[in-house]
């Protein structure tokens, strides 16, 4: 004892570490330091007086006592132990959440399924947006810097330039590090005598450098290869190299034949790079100098009037799209001055688009649909959240007693909110996992929406880190949306009152109002989705009724490629004549014709300018007219009504006077009130050095749609393919025979004439022209699915709220019945409150729908955004669902037995 009083000098042995650690963990902060100090001090005395061993034993005993005391102490305390860490409480909450969800498996299943659906729809759509819009050119570097150069002519976007245009623009461009020009074509390629079709991109020599796609095997193109007539070289795409050459590294230097011309393979492009067009996958890249060799119609490289190249530039660091546009505008202005004598580039205005929003190519088709889908996905998620919030509120009400007890036991309000949020997170987490599992499958669905087309469509949707992050963010956002409000409301302000009279009507008024708002919101959102779906469906049926000017049903088409078979024009004409004769002789064939291209396909047509006899040139004249080469009986085969004159016939051959079919719009523009039949015109501008090649109008036909069903009637010229030979044509056969039968017959006929000529892609014309309504079909289909789903959710939501309401008001209803209200009164009371609830949603939904209609306007064909039949239909559908949702609870309320109800409490 004296030792203590005098201050036992110095520091001796240390007390057992583990024991003092245990004491420190167990004892409350307030007393920890003093207790440990006292123990340590006494430990020194003990070890001095009785030795180290005894002292340690003593210390352990003391520590055990302290821990037992602390535990006893903690039990006595009503508050949670102050030593709990955040992670510990999260852990507890997680366990608790799983337990309470397991206790109500029905609720948990419904909630997880709804979340999986909502989150899954969004991640799926995002995975599409991610690969189509956010990464428009896979395999290339810094796609954001790439822009497409175009010009506007009288408000229309024109994406094509001539090669001399390209050279002028490229030379003058300072705002870009480089500009490439490209065009695509289908070619015949022969490797070791095996012939097949392939898609090629014909590109300027700087293509791979500017796009930022390296050529890892072999080399890219040199400037030398831009000159016509130089050595023919080809770069393979990685995918084609793998498919056709099994990835053989010795492929460099090999000879192949492309469109009957010898080519040398010089390189293989990087893996994952498919060419300069999003959504399409090219097999070959050819230098632009080979154009005269591989493209029908002769050399275009020196022809300023031949516009066929798409231009893509890479913005220089620090340059903006607007600066590039201004520069292009001034380049065009100087070109206009330089070519003023030929009246070129008049009314041209520069337009520069980001690559992910270019008016050209697959993205322009998918972009509006994807943006609409993003919005639809968001709405579906909102509906899901509203519905879940409703479910959770109901759950929170029934758990109010539990929560009040926890609060009175000393749980913090935040602790309760945290608990409910964690339950929400568990639900959303399970939902996201389900969504991600489904995503493996749903992300690939996009390709199923791709329209039938002869183009090499390639929609490779990859689920990458960005998609996963998006899903996580959506899940967290969802939890905040659906779980926060119920959680905040679940912590009642007045614990005592809640404990006393849970269940009495009116106590939960504010919660009630929230649930009603949620249901009204669901009704409103589902109405807007349904209106969107209705508008798309109406567009489709309007489009089906809208005649494109020809009848696609009953026509089978097949593509011929005489060019790659190395035909001269003489041989080609002969082939066409024999092919038509052969096909005409097939039993069941009504009529047969040829055409350079099919109408309403994705492949745009050619344009040409022309000079019409007796027509004074004016500013109102179109920039050019659509041009097509067709075979005899074209109007008959396509069932295009001939208004005046005659259809083309087998007599319109090369030695006969040149003739043409024109459309009514063309006749109206160039001949006005004169008679067009017998009128004459020639292609291009008058030239003093050579006499014009006059073409006589043989017949005028009704207008036909060329690119889209929405377009204004276009001036179109159709010239006989025998007089204006083209080595690529599509055989059009009108027949009642089924596709499979006729396909075999046609293949045999072509093989009989010449087995070397590729005849491919035999299909129904109607399948191709469906491409014209592809957007409406896609948007319509998806909106119908989501809209029906939303309607179902809204119906369940309204039913839930009303049943809940009836449950809450049982006592009140009992009293009403007891004091003389009839069952009819009660029925009207409940049905009325349901009707008010849904009515509010309907009004909000109709207002919302007007916005939806305007958003969809660009996709609508023949339907106004505010379309009364659509609205009537949607309101009708909703009324049916709403009536069911109201009637069931109202009937239950009316059948309440007052004596039982009043005795219940």
């Amino acid at each position, binding site marked *: 004892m004296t030792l203590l009083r005098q201050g036992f000098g110095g520091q001796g042995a*240390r007390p057992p570490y583990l024991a003092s650690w245990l004491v420190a963990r167990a004892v409350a902060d307030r007393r920890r330091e003093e207790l440990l100090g006292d123990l340590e001090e006494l430990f020194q005395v003990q070890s001095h007086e009785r030795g180290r061993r005894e002292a340690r034993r003593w210390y352990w005993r003391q520590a055990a006592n302290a821990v037992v005391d602390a535990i006893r102490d903690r039990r006595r305390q009503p508050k949670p132990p102050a030593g709990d860490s955040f992670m510990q409480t999260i852990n507890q909450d997680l366990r608790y959440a799983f337990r309470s969800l397991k206790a109500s498996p029905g609720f948990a299943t419904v909630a997880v399924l709804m979340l999986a659906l909502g989150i899954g729809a969004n991640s799926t759509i995002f995975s599409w947006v991610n690969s189509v819009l956010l990464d428009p050119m896979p395999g290339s570097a810094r796609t954001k810097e790439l822009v497409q150069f175009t010009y506007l002519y009288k408000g229309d976007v024109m994406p094509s330039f001539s090669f001399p245009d390209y050279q002028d623009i490229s030379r003058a461009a300072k705002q870009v590090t480089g500009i490439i020009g490209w065009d695509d074509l289908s070619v015949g390629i022969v490797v070791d005598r095996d012939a097949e079709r392939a898609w090629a991109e014909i590109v300027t020599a700087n293509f791979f450098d500017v796009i930022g796609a390296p050529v890892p095997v072999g080399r890219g193109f040199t400037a030398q290869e831009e000159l016509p007539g130089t050595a023919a070289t080809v770069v393979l795409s990685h995918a084609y190299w793998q498919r056709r050459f099994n990835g053989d590294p010795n492929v460099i230097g090999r000879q192949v034949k492309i469109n009957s011309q010898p080519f040398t393979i010089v390189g293989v492009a990087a893996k994952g790079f498919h060419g300069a067009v999003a959504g399409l996958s090219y097999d070959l890249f050819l230098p632009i100098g080979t154009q005269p060799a591989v493209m029908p119609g002769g050399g275009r490289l020196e022809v300023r009037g031949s516009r066929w190249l798409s231009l893509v530039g890479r913005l220089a660091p620090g340059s903006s799209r607007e600066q590039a546009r201004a520069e292009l505008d001034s380049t065009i202005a100087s070109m206009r001055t330089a070519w003023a004598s030929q009246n070129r580039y008049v009314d041209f205005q520069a337009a520069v688009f980001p690559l992910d929003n270019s008016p050209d190519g697959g993205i322009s088709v998918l972009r509006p649909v994807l943006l609409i889908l993003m919005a639809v996905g968001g709405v579906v998620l909102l509906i899901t959240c509203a519905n879940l919030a409703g479910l959770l509120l109901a759950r929170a009400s029934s758990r109010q007693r539990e929560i009040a007890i926890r609060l009175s036991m000393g749980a913090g309000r935040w602790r309760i909110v945290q608990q409910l949020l964690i339950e929400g997170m568990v639900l959303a987490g399970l939902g996201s996992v389900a969504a991600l599992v489904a995503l493996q499958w749903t992300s690939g669905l996009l390709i199923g929406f791709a329209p039938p087309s002869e183009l090499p469509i390639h929609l490779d949707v990859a689920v990458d880190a960005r998609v996963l992050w998006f899903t996580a963010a959506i899940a967290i956002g969802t939890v905040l949306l659906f779980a926060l409000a119920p959680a905040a409301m679940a912590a009642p302000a007045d614990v005592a009152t809640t404990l006393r009279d849970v269940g009495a009507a009116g106590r939960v008024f504010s919660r009630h109002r929230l649930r009603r708002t949620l249901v009204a919101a669901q009704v409103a959102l589902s109405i807007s989705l349904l209106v969107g779906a209705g508008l798309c469906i109406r567009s489709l049926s309007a489009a089906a009724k809208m005649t494109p000017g020809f009848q696609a049903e009953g026509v089978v088409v097949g593509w011929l490629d005489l060019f790659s078979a190395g035909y001269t024009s003489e041989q080609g004409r002969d082939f066409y004549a024999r092919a038509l004769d052969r096909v005409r002789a097939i039993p069941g064939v009504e009529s047969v014709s040829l055409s350079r291209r099919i109408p309403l396909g994705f492949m745009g047509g050619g344009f040409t300018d022309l000079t019409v006899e007796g027509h004074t040139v004016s500013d109102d004249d179109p920039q050019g007219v659509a041009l097509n080469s067709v075979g005899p009986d074209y109007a008959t085969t396509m069932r295009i009504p001939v208004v005046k004159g005659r259809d083309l016939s087998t007599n319109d051959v090369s030695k006969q006077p040149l003739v043409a079919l024109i459309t009514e719009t063309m006749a109206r523009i160039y001949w006005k009130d004169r008679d067009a039949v017998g009128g004459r015109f020639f292609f291009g501008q008058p030239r003093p050095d050579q006499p014009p090649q006059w073409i006589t109008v043989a017949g005028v036909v009704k207008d036909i749609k060329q690119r889209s069903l929405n377009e204004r009637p276009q001036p179109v010229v159709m010239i006989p393919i025998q007089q204006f030979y083209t080595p690529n044509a599509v055989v059009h056969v009108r027949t009642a025979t089924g596709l499979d039968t006729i396909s075999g017959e046609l293949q045999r006929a072509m093989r009989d004439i010449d087995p070397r000529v590729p005849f491919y892609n035999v299909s129904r014309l109607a399948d191709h022209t469906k491409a014209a309504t592809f957007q409406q079909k896609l948007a319509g289909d998806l909106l119908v699915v989501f809209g029906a789903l939303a309607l179902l959710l809204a119906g369940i939501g309204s039913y839930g709220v009303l049943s809940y309401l009836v449950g809450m008001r049982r006592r009140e209803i009992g009293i009403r019945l007891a004091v003389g209200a009839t069952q009819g009164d009660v029925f009207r009371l409940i049905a009325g409150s349901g009707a008010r609830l849904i009515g509010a949603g309907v009004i909000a939904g109709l207002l919302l729908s007007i916005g939806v209609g305007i958003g969809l306007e660009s996709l609508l064909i023949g339907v106004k955004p505010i379309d009364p039949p659509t609205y009537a239909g949607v309101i009708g559908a909703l009324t049916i669902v709403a009536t069911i949702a109201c009637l069931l609870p109202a009937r239950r309320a009316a059948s309440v037995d007052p004596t039982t109800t009043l005795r219940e409490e």
Partner: protein
Amino acid sequence: MTRIPPPVLGEFEQIVMLALLRLGPDAYGATVSAEIETRSGRGVSVSAVHTTLDRLEQKGLVKSRVGDPTPQRGGKRKRHYEVAALGMKALQASYRSIRNMADGLEDLLGEPA
């Protein structure tokens, strides 16, 4: 005005408070424990001493102040205790009642030397 009787003390509480009185200004957890151990000859739980002192302080029977840390305590501070006025009254009451109850039983209980 009714007088509020001082709280009744438990046996261990009495012992702890007596130790405080004996130790005077030097009374803190370790010395109190050691004092009880030497005086009563029985092993003492330091934790129990602490708990008791804590409880007595909450009842207002003892007062405490924080003292300096010393090296043999591993640098941890100590808390000095002294008996408060109310505690003194309670202790006097306890002692009075035990003495009154023991009066005349000295033979049986054994009078301290």
